[in-house]
């Protein structure tokens, strides 16, 4: 046994493994091979364990956060109960308004703008092991109907996009990841731009915005949402608000930052929109669909847009 092992020279194994890696990298670069089958098997095995350990981590992390003392929680609970009552009453009045609103929209044939997407909630169970990327694992997978390319939101703001799925978990790339870029627009004048994640700006809780043209006229505080021309993101999802506008030397474009609407530091639950942009029906069909599927989720969307 020992003699056998001595005959295997480390250099040979090393070279073999390096070749394997390079082959995989080349394959993925050339043909889009992502090893998703193997990945989903690994994720399937790991998901239950991650789920369990994350619960411990969550509670430990919370214990470390000494901000939440008992008394504060109790008073917060009371406040929240009051708020629920208030919001409930507001929801019912909003529902009334919404009906009127929808009727009006129908008349002007704009109702495809905010179709009531089917959504599902999920918990974040693991995060990327390195410090370079901002991906995370959520507790729902293809068995729950999650597909790669679905948009993920929280607090009514865009969080990211599902990149991989396994039967019981999926990987989400957040918009603050350095490799993320989202086609967006400024709501006040519908000019398009591109919102990029940036590791350098992450500390300041900002994203960078490119391709702002001269006529976009950005001002601090302008709302930025996902654009219609994006082929991955559903239109009209809130990304954040413009800040630090600067005019470029050429005077033709602006650069700016966006403060994301979502608090990525304290994110633990997210909503996955079970509607792929590529399957989004065209205008004629969607008008009828959004009427039939108008439900609670739509209110949040429209309320947010108002």
């Amino acid at each position, binding site marked *: 046994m020992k003699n056998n092992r001595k005959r*295997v*020279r*480390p*250099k040979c*194994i*090393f070279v073999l*493994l*390096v070749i*394997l*890696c*390079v*082959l*995989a*990298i080349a*394959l*993925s*670069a050339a043909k889009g*091979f*992502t*090893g998703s089958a*193997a*990945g989903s098997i*690994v*994720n399937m095995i*790991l998901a239950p*364990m*991650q789920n369990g*350990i*994350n619960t*411990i*981590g*969550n509670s*430990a*992390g919370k214990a*470390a956060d000494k901000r939440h003392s008992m008394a504060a929680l109790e008073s917060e609970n009371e406040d929240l109960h009051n708020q629920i009552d208030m919001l409930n009453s507001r929801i019912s009045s909003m529902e009334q308004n919404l009906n009127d609103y929808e009727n009006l929209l129908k008349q002007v044939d704009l109702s495809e703008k905010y179709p009531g997407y089917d959504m599902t909630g999920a918990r974040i*169970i*693991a*995060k*990327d*092991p*390195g*410090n*370079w*990327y901002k*991906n995370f*694992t959520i507790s729902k997978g293809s068995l729950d109907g999650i597909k790669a390319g679905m948009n993920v939101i929280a607090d009514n703001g865009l969080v990211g996009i599902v*990149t991989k799925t396994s039967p019981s978990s999926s*990987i989400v*790339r957040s918009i603050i990841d*350095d*490799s993320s870029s989202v086609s967006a627009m400024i709501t006040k004048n519908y000019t398009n731009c591109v919102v990029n994640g940036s*590791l*350098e700006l*992450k*500390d300041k809780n900002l994203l960078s915005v490119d391709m702002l043209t001269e006529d976009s006229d950005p001002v601090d505080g302008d709302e930025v949402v996902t654009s219609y021309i994006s082929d991955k993101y559903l239109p009209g999802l809130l990304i954040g608000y413009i800040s630090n506008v600067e005019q470029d030397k050429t005077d033709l474009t602006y650069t700016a930052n966006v403060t994301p609407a979502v608090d990525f530091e304290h994110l633990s639950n997210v909503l996955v929109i079970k509607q792929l942009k590529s399957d989004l029906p065209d205008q004629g069909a969607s008008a009828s669909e959004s009427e039939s599927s108008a439900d609670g989720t739509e209110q949040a969307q429209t309320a947010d847009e108002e």
Partner: protein
Amino acid sequence: MKKIISYILFILVLFLLQTCLFSHFALGGIQPNLLLIFTASAAIINGSLDGCTVGFCCGLLIDLTFGTQPGLMALGLCICGYLAGMTNRFFYKEDITFPILVIAGADLLLGLYIYIVSFLTRGRQHILFYLHRIILPEVVYTVIIAVFLYRIILFILVRMQKKGSER
């Protein structure tokens, strides 16, 4: 055989700890790299062969779960493991300073590797920022964890080998 099982268990447990637990204890958004500690430790204790194989497996696990480019992390950790394994001839059990230095070196190397292959290639040129904000803090945090984790890894791996050779 026992060694392989203990390797697999180590990789799995450390991977789960890192993705689920240590993300809650990140200091300034930086978490230690447990899988690198294990790769480097296995390499120091058992040589280049174990180092590059363990590194490859750890990297593959990260690639398959979180990676977008399969093979990138596997290659990086494999190289780190192999290079760390070259210091195996200076290894003796009682010394702790030297292995910690090797682990720090390996983490620095891995950080630079990741920066070069996945950030520099996308035109992110501020190497000083990344060095100062990501790579060096990670090295420091990793070294602090490594002081404890290395002893545990050493204890278990050496025990495994003793039992293995008795048979």
